[in-house]
């Protein structure tokens, strides 16, 4: 096991945590946070695996993809937050309607 | 705004650019437009400043020494098992002119021993003091005097 593998395992933890919270929590802001944690986990996985080059410089292609991804993630978050606000302005509640409650 | 102070600000921004780029001459292709843009926006945002530059040289050592003491003081209180603090909120009537001098005072106070500025109202600074038994009032007055000299103004008298 190397440092790269250590961070890759951490990323698996982050992805699982995010996925669990995404499904379990009803509040949309929490779901957005969960997606962001999942996204960070996936970025971490990409960059961690890119580091398996021994003493040479890490693979720059995943780095570039992750930088692109971070910027896309923030714009997607902004869009999601606006959707959430729009929904709660209409329904008075920032949660998705739950079928079991109806 | 005087030409001299525009020139001084331009020199300051050019100096920052020179520092950032390690004096690389090829960088000025980007540096000149960047400095010009920063200067234009700076003039739009901060039309006037009347800092007295030679007073600055006196203020810096005073500030460094007092902020070092501030750090030592709070570190000692934090680590001391008895934790000797007696906090209180205190309103200090400001005699400095409104605007930059008052804000400068508020920011300075937060780094000096035992004082933290918590609100800047019109001509009054709410200060949170870590130890209300200490001589923080004399300290605040001293700082106010120095800030007044730094901005080339005098304190109002009540």
């Amino acid at each position, binding site marked *: 096991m190397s440092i790269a593998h250590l961070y890759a395992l951490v990323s698996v933890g982050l992805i699982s945590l995010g996925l669990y919270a995404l499904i379990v929590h009803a509040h949309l802001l929490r779901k957005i946070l969960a997606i962001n944690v999942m996204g960070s986990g996936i970025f971490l996985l990409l960059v961690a695996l890119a580091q398996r080059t021994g003493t040479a410089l890490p693979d720059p292609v995943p780095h570039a993809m992750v930088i692109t991804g971070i910027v896309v993630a923030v714009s997607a978050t902004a869009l999601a937050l606006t959707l959430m606000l729009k929904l709660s302005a209409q329904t008075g509640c920032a949660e998705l309607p739950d079928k079991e409650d109806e | 705004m005087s030409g001299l102070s525009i020139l001084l600000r331009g020199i300051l921004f050019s*100096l*920052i650019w*020179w*520092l*950032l*780029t*390690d*004096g690389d001459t090829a960088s000025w292709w980007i540096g000149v437009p960047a400095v010009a843009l920063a200067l234009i926006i700076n003039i739009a945002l901060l039309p006037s400043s009347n800092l007295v530059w030679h007073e600055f040289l006196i203020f810096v050592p005073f500030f*460094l020494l007092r*902020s*070092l003491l*501030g*750090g*030592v*003081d*709070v*570190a*000692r*209180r*934090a*680590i001391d098992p008895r*934790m000797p*603090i*007696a*906090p*209180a*909120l205190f309103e200090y009537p400001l005699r400095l002119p409104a605007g930059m001098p008052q804000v400068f005072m*508020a*920011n*300075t106070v*937060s*780094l000096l*021993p*035992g004082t*933290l*500025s*918590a*609100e*800047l109202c019109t001509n009054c600074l*709410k200060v*949170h003091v*870590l130890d209300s038994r200490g001589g923080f009032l004399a300290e605040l007055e001293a700082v106010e005097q120095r800030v007044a000299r730094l901005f080339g103004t005098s304190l109002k008298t009540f």
Partner: protein
Amino acid sequence: MTLIDYLTAALLLAGAIFFFAGTVGLLRFPDVYTRLHALTKADNVGLGLMVVALAIQAESWTAVGKLLLIWLLVMLAGASVAHLVARGALRRGVRPWKQ
């Protein structure tokens, strides 16, 4: 190790002690205002000592200038943000802790 190296090591260690003390204060102090005292002042001195430690090792004057610029900006931001947090707490009606 030369004398300069020892000086750097001593300054870095002293800086770390201040950061540690600031964190201890953050954990031990009773309310948001006292915690801000600890963080702002102790961390400012800690960073200052580390900047001096690195500046005497720096290879060029521009590096020294960069370090000082960082310190200056952190000082400005630290003092301003401490004020804004304290102001926010005061406006929300957070009473200062009293013995």
